[in-house]
């Protein structure tokens, strides 16, 4: 297990380096105005050259890359150009990332808490009213664009339950609606997958044998079916974590949460190369982290994945 995680970590770090290098290279292909900021118009051509040389942008590309990595290891992502001029990128992202992470992870936790049991119940009552109700909910969430029901929730639910319309850090009640709205879609997908895999497992031969040997239906569900059905679920976890973090742009702007959601769009529009670079780095790290966690979770629950020996059975 230890070796397996170590190996996966090393692989991920390698992947991360490749991504960073590609992003770095791509941004060097962007117009240089992105580094000059609002002052560009007032500068003469010579002044611009001096400014860019001072920034190190006239060095050979390989030296620039080296410097970039050097700064990166010291936790320096450069300074924002015109999003918030001269403020370090790390502190711009740092201010906002906590909000996005908290809401993202909160929504994932909430949807797991609701979606998995819902899926289990639906599988157990396949074809009965609860199953149909759940299916209706899933179809609704998948078919109706998120923006529509987000808006409706904000318009009506706030009204009916007298909840605050906007996010307020110091008023926990104002956190409820954004969290709930964010959790709706992943809850539906967890329930859907859980139900599907449970039904799949319930039709397998080993369940028939377990029944024949006299295992109670309840024991059967929890000690045989649940774990087996959860294995494929483990793969979806990282993907949904990513989705809830990056997909929070809507919610964040609706409830004016000072999160990261809109930051990338803003930074791109204002051609703030350093901020874009920093954000891509954060997003890709989160994605890779999600994948590792998914793999580890799979390895923990499925004995058929041989660890660290490079020979997988599945």
């Amino acid at each position: 297990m230890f070796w397996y995680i170590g190996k996966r970590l090393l692989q991920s770090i390698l992947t991360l380096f490749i991504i960073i290098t590609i992003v770095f290279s791509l941004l060097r292909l962007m117009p240089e105005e992105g580094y000059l900021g609002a002052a560009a118009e007032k500068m003469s051509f010579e002044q611009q050259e001096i400014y860019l040389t001072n920034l190190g942008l006239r060095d050979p590309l390989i030296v620039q890359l080296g410097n970039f990595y050097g700064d990166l290891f010291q936790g320096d992502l450069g300074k924002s150009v015109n999003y918030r001029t001269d403020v370090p990128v790390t502190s711009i992202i740092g201010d906002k990332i906590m909000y996005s992470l908290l809401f993202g992870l909160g929504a994932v936790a909430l949807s797991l808490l609701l979606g998995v049991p819902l899926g289990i119940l639906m599988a157990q009552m396949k074809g009965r009213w609860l199953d149909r109700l759940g299916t209706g909910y899933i179809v609704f969430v998948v078919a109706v664009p998120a923006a529509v029901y987000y808006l409706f929730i904000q318009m009506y639910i706030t009204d009916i339950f007298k909840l605050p319309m906007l996010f307020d850090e110091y008023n926990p009640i104002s956190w409820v609606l954004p969290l709930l709205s964010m959790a709706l879609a992943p809850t539906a997908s967890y329930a859907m997958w859980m139900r599907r895999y449970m039904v799949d497992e319930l039709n397998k031969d080993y369940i028939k044998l377990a029944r024949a040997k006299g295992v109670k239906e309840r024991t059967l569900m929890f000690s045989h079916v649940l774990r087996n059905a959860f294995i494929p679920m483990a793969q979806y976890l990282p993907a949904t974590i990513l989705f809830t973090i990056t997909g929070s742009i809507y919610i964040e702007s609706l409830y004016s949460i000072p999160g990261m959601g809109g930051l990338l769009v803003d930074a791109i529009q204002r051609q703030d190369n350093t901020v874009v670079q920093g954000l891509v780095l954060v997003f890709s790290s989160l994605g890779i982290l999600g994948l590792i966690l998914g793999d580890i979770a799979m390895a923990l629950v499925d004995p058929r994945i041989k660890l660290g020996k490079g020979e997988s059975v599945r």
Partner: protein
Amino acid sequence: MMEANHPQERILSIQNLVIQFTLRGQVLKAIRDISLDLYKGESLAIVGESGSGKSVLVKSIMGLLDKNGYIDQGQILYNDMDLAGFKTEEDWLKIRGKEIAMVTQDPMTSLNPLKTIGKQIEECVVLHQGLKGKEAYHVTLKLLTDVGIYDVEKRYKQYPHEFSGGMRQRIVIAIALACNPKILICDEPTTALDVTIQAQILQLLKNLQKKYGLTTVYITHDLGVVAKVADRIAVMYAGDIIEVGKAHEVFFDGKHPYTWALISSLPQLGSKGEQLFSIKGTPPNLFKEIKGDAFAPRNQYALKIDFVERPPFFKVSDTHYARTWLLDPRSPKVELPEALLAFFEEGRSYANEQ
């Protein structure tokens, strides 16, 4: 040899059983008025082609019918209980495993891939033998040894994917034995195995039957298996038992045309240069009411009455009965094919030598 154990004490008795399924609003009659006794200590083979209802019959004994299937009429008597009347899971838990255990068809899929085989066997030991902890562990190891697995302490901790097909079938058998049942049902225990392993598994089952004093029921369409293990044979066709008797009686003195057809289909009975025998036509549609003998439309010896009235069981000997009008004294004599007669002759002389 075959007469040596002369089991007479009835352990399970099926009487006039009718099982139906509702499928898309239609009613399918899977078991049509079957009566069958199972005697203590014997091994009974139920043979028949796919869809003849053999699996449905044994599933009904364990309450494992699919949700759309139900017992319409009849009784299944076991220990003064009528299993046909069982409704709740609680009722069935008294039977499943404890009294009647099952060895399933496909060992590759019959084990939970995420539990060690030791745990899967031990689950039964704990459930049905009331043992716990160390005791249960030791009983499990003994069971593993009994089914012919070596290095049991290491094997106990391994997962199903670390075993071959034959080994897994041994484990499935160990699970059945762990329940400490009176009756063991083997639902095509060797179908999914390759031929060399088949013989080993059958031998193992035979040995264990003696050792644990089990009554076994084999379900199979493989007459080779039947010949190796069965004391008694029941032949099923279209949801009905059409012939039942001691193994040698059915094999070498079969009376029902369907039994003849089955035996004629054995490749050993074919002669060089000629096509192997196959039964023409298809089994009847079970959604429709079957009139007369279900096999009549495919039967070259069919009489007029076969299409009109269902034949009763005619007694051939104390242990041998067949449902065919050909046994009625008024019916004409039929000429059987040479190969079949030769087979019967050979079989009888072989049985006499024994």
